[in-house]
């Protein structure tokens, strides 16, 4: 380790400012309570030179972007099976973290013995796999939040937003229940996805069976048992069930590998789907083109692929609108 002060002596001017800005940033980030006096001192430092403020903004941006690493947080216990390809680089690349993950996972297993509630979430474009102590697997898709409450007697989850795949190890004595937007789904030995689109909840049954019932007050509760291939669409008042080929439902799970599979999908729907995974949005409002149909496999983060398809295959125009893109004829 260098002598204190030596680093600073070796720094160029920009480096020295970066170092000081990083110190301020860390002081603020880790402060239990950032007081008015603290902020005044920081503002005074900014006041000395615009270079201070800009260096701080630059590092703060990187610090905030680093928060995305939270999506890699260890699940309740280490996964035995292979992770989706998106996560693999991390597992291979950051060996040091495995020991940490194991230690924390141990703490996680302990906590399952007593009633324990945790909320897991993913940012836009994120993906998180959890393995529960009972062997059940849960995968969160982009921009999702799931509260999981486990005790020796109850298994309960609340989908606050987004989409989650549940692969539940059935236990008749302790069914696994998912609540979302006034709907309750109870597993009867199942693999299913639940997607909360605000007003509408969509449940796709891939294997086994599950029971769906509305829990809205004042409505009489109708329970519907779902079979593989069933896609239930439920609102506060209505429920519709349609049957899809299992192969289609499995294609819909492409998100687990960072992929979106479109098959005879309208341009508007494809854009909406891609938009779930990206901060930069694609707008398709021109009625002449919303119904154009496209097919193919896209990477979730590859907005350019869809824009290029629109340009090259359909001869459409793409223009920038603020942070977003609009496709027009």
């Amino acid at each position: 380790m260098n002598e204190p002060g030596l680093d600073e002596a070796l720094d160029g001017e920009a480096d020295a400012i970066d170092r000081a800005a990083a110190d301020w940033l860390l002081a603020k980030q880790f402060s239990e309570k950032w007081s008015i006096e603290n902020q005044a001192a920081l503002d005074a430092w900014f006041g000395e030179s615009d270079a201070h403020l800009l260096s701080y903004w630059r590092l703060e941006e990187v610090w905030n972007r680093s928060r995305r690493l939270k999506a890699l947080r260890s699940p309740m216990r280490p996964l035995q099976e292979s992770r989706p390809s998106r996560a693999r680089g991390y597992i291979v690349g950051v060996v040091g973290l495995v020991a940490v993950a194991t230690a924390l996972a141990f703490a996680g297993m302990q906590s399952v013995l007593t009633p324990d509630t945790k909320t897991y979430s993913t940012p836009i474009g994120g993906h998180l796999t959890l393995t529960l102590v009972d062997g059940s697997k849960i995968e969160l898709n982009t921009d999702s939040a799931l509260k999981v409450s486990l005790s020796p007697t109850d298994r309960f989850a609340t989908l606050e937003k987004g989409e989650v795949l549940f692969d539940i190890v059935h236990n008749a004595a302790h069914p696994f229940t998912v609540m979302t937007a006034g709907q309750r789904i109870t597993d009867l030995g199942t693999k299913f996805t639940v997607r909360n689109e605000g007003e509408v909840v969509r449940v796709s049954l891939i294997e086994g069976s599950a029971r769906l019932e509305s829990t809205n007050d004042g409505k009489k509760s109708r329970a519907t048992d779902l079979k593989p291939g069933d896609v239930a669409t439920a609102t506060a008042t209505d429920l519709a069930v349609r049957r899809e080929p299992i192969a289609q439902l499995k294609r819909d799970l492409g998100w687990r590998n960072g992929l979106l599979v479109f098959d005879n999908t309208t341009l508007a729907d494809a854009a909406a789907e891609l938009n779930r995974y990206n901060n930069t949005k694609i707008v398709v409002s021109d009625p002449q083109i919303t119904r154009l149909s496209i097919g193919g496999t896209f990477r979730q983060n590859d907005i350019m692929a869809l824009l290029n398809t629109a340009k090259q295959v359909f001869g459409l125009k793409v223009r920038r609108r603020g942070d977003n893109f609009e496709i027009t004829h």
Partner: protein
Amino acid sequence: MTDTSEMDRDNPGARGQSMTSRKLDLHAWFVREVLPLEASLTTYLQHNWRGQTAVADMVQDVYVKVFQAAQSALPESTAAFVFATARNLLIDRVRHEKVVPLEAVEDLGALEVAADIPGPDEQVIARDELRQIQKMVELMQPRWREVFLLHHVEGLSRREIGIRMGISEITVTRHLNSGLRFLANKLYQKKREPRQ
């Protein structure tokens, strides 16, 4: 395991507390449109400058000048404005830096903004943030990386990291400081790396 609520206290929303809305606009503009140009700007300065001042310092000078000019009005084309500012700075330095060798600026007359400078838009889109950050974090020195991941992935405080790694909180802070600057330089593709 650390409680998630501990992560919440360092939420990004707190950063704007003392900023006016004007400054928030400038902040958003600087982060979104100026910073993504840093790699091209650095390359441009490296190719055209042989003087005494470090390129990193010149980049910072360009930022300050661009920022100050933007306070009256944001430029229509940020890229054109940033490179015009860089060009003026080069000319200015040639005039004032006494020890500049004659070849300090190559072909000053030809310093036009390169047509193929990637705009911030494409850079933003090309960026799969999580994957890119992971890749850069893996390039860090092992100790910086460990500290960085213990905080950002596992949500540990400096104190908890210190206990786990058997180092002082001050050392944890130094590693975080170095790791953060390294990551910023990597993400913005600067060639320089901070010293320990």
